């Protein structure tokens, strides 16, 4: 066992984990933050995307120990004081989700892409979200939502 400590959604957390524990396992099982999902076992689907020190990361592809000392944000950390993040509002407004399973990862990836491309074209959005699989929406409304959120966020 090894001790890991990090900040998750602004709170300091610490736990003893097996060295092989993945970041997503730490988040879901140790912290019981179940908004971060696991949809595959090959780092393809993107349901587990979180932010580590401000960058989007597939948390199934990182050991918890690699995030030792980092600041992690999960989907639960997006709304502040009950106020929804623009990306959350945009997904609701543009019907960018159906079953909701891919949504947390999709939101986290979208925020990162907007940060890097403040005024993204449709092509950029589609390319950037290539690592997040959605089986429900056909992506059209997700693209719309990301575009709207980018504008709202001042792109």
């Amino acid at each position: 066992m090894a001790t890991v400590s990090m900040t998750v959604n602004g709170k300091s957390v610490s736990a003893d984990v097996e060295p092989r524990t993945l970041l997503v396992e730490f988040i879901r099982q140790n912290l019981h933050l179940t908004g971060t999902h696991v949809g595959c076992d090959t780092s393809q689907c993107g349901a587990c995307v979180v932010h580590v020190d401000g960058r989007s990361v597939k948390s199934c592809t990182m050991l918890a120990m690699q995030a030792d000392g980092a600041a992690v944000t999960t989907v639960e950390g997006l709304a502040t004081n009950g106020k929804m993040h623009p990306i959350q509002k945009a997904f609701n407004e543009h019907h960018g989700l159906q079953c909701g399973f891919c949504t947390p990862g999709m939101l986290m990836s979208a925020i990162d892409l907007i940060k890097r491309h403040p005024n993204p074209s449709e092509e950029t959005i589609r390319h950037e979200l290539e690592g997040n699989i959605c089986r429900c929406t056909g992506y059209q409304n997700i693209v719309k939502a990301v575009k709207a959120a980018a504008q709202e966020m001042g792109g």
Partner: protein
Amino acid sequence: MTDTGIGASVRRKEDRRFTTGKGRYTDDIHRPGQAIGYFLRSPHAHANIKGIDTTAAKAAPGVVAVLTGADYAADGFGNPICGWTVTGKNGEGHIAPPHPTIAVDKVRQVGDAVALIVAETLDKAKDAAELVEVDYEELPAVVNIADALASGAPQIHAEAPGNLCFDWDIGDKAATEKAFSAAAHVTTLELVNNRLVPNAMEPRAAIGEYDSGSEEITLYTTSQNPHVARLVISAFVGLAPENKLRVIAPDVGGGFGSKIFIYPDEIAVAWAARKLDRPVKWTAERSESFLTDAHGRDHITKAELATDKDGRILGLRVATLANFGAYLSTFATAVPTYLYATLLSGQYAIPTIYAEVKGGFTNTSPVDAYRGAGRPEATYVVERLMERAARDLGIDPAEFRRRNFIGTDQFPYQTPVILNYDIGDYGASLDKALEMIDYGNFAGRRAASERNGKHRGIGFAAYIEACGIAPSAAVGSLGAGVGLWESAQVRFNPTGSVTVFTGSHSHGQGHETTFAQLICDRLGVPFESIEIVHGDTKEVPFGMGTYGSRSLAVGGTAIAKACTKIVDKGKKIAAHLMEAAVDDIEYKSGVFKVAGTDRQTTMAEVAFAAYVPHNFPEGVEPGLNESAFYDPLNFTFPAGTHIAEVEVDPATGTVDIVDWVAVDDFGNVINPMIVEGQVHGGIAQGIGQALLEGCVYDRETGQLLSGSYMDYAMPRADDLPNFRVGLTNTPCTHNELGVKGCGEAGAIAAPAALMNAITDAIGSEIDMPATQEKVWRAVQSRRMAAE
């Protein structure tokens, strides 16, 4: 129309929890003291099990139990069943070999469960699984259905000689042969409908829990129809009587059919929890989902269309081989028969049809209903044949379809293959789609593409589907083991808010919003004061669940009927409160009025009076809480036209979808935003089938080659275009909402539309998926043949 009533694009209630990470999917649930289950699965497609040694695994750290098929058999419980009897040409029911919950002496597909390891953590369970020694004697395997039905194929079940499950037919063989002998032209196509893996993003999962005090089992599971799961696990498996088995399907992350079925894994988890008197959780890894979720499609078909000299259809003849995999899944037999061949008339007045279907076993994962279930396969046959025939006859494909459409004056229309279409206007959808895609200028666009060295093609699919599944008497006469009605309970709370219990289940469809709009419309209750409850057999009246685009047409109609009962009772209470005769009470939008006066009372006041009945009409029971069960009178028949336009690069084989128009007739629409979203998602899955997805097994070894997202091409954001969606409306004639269902249309129409566009562009017929390599080879061989 109010801003939250019928017809409004109300933003979804359920989004708040899903966008804030507060969804509650099965794997998110932690039960006190829960252990973790892990299945050891067969690495072989076909093998005898000579022995299993679990000694070392049982002694491994953190292991609670290692359970085998022998343990399960010793406890005397039953196994998963197939609930639909198909009677073949020989007058006998299909052959249904046993499907062991955990394999005992033989495995028949890669992924068959051989042992269930229960441990304190997943890692410990997996470590212990490595220590289980299974002595396999490998047998030859067969994966392709034509191979399996050929003589000399490996025999998979002793009960099914030659691997045949049934040999079934429908329609008038003699009349069809006569039509073909009189034909001026016969168009023939051989088609493969590729096997697909449904791939709901949430993998299947289950938590079994046993309360030894009440002797009740609770099963949390990823189900589209928790009551049906309870019924099967009680009545056929026998784990617990229905009153001692609670099935909870919490938030479910997509289904597309794959979560209808009662799988062995969930049964084993519930059994283990009871046996060990401890909660046991199992969540499939994605590779496990690829191996154990029921797959879709997998047909090989020869289809022939007879036409006269004027391009009118005289008859249709179809022969299909359907692959069921190693075992029959819950509704497998219905899919390539009553959900497929009954749709072969399409939108057309075809005087005679004859179809034969042989279903059989292979060493592959079971195949069952996947989005559309039989109807995409039927549309694919009919619409590729229509397109091919139009090209052969030199008739414009739109005109050829129009010439053969069932006319608006022909409804109700009895097809030669059982179904009776209540209403439709196929010309209206086609016209609108032609206008939207600017069909008149296609030739110019094609010429422009050619100038740029690209081949442009256009393809149509004028589809029909039978939804709102289904009238119980009708499906019962065709072999269904269940009725297919739906239940609803509308319960006013004393302060005027409403809780609705529905037997249908939402796993992405947005029922919490759509059904609330219906309540809003019928009862005048504010949208935010309505709660929709589904998915828990202990809370909700027995219901049949969600599949076959039935939730609104059947479940919604049940809710509407319960609302009518609420209003009827409300009138009696209102009449008493206002000292008027019941017959003088008029009701509209949540307000009861005494006719011809300004006296009125509201639904909220009536509800309060019902629960605080100090001043109440004699003979009326207190409370305002009504139930309804609705059994539909007929299927609903959504229909429409999709048109795809593509550009193919002959140098690379790349297919670029440059435009997509979908015009659908779903009858009345409650929430256009949600309906459009369903259409988008369906088309995406249809494009996936046509362009990207193909489930591939090794023909020699039976190994699944496309067993992960590295190998199975899921449609991603940059693979898909935008879709332009339009609606036409002929309201359904036999449910009071006039609704038909929208969940499957896209997946039904899209494969044929896209393949017709691609074959138009490249000038030769190819099978799905039209991968870049396949398209390139077709273009090159045509070019070489021309040179």
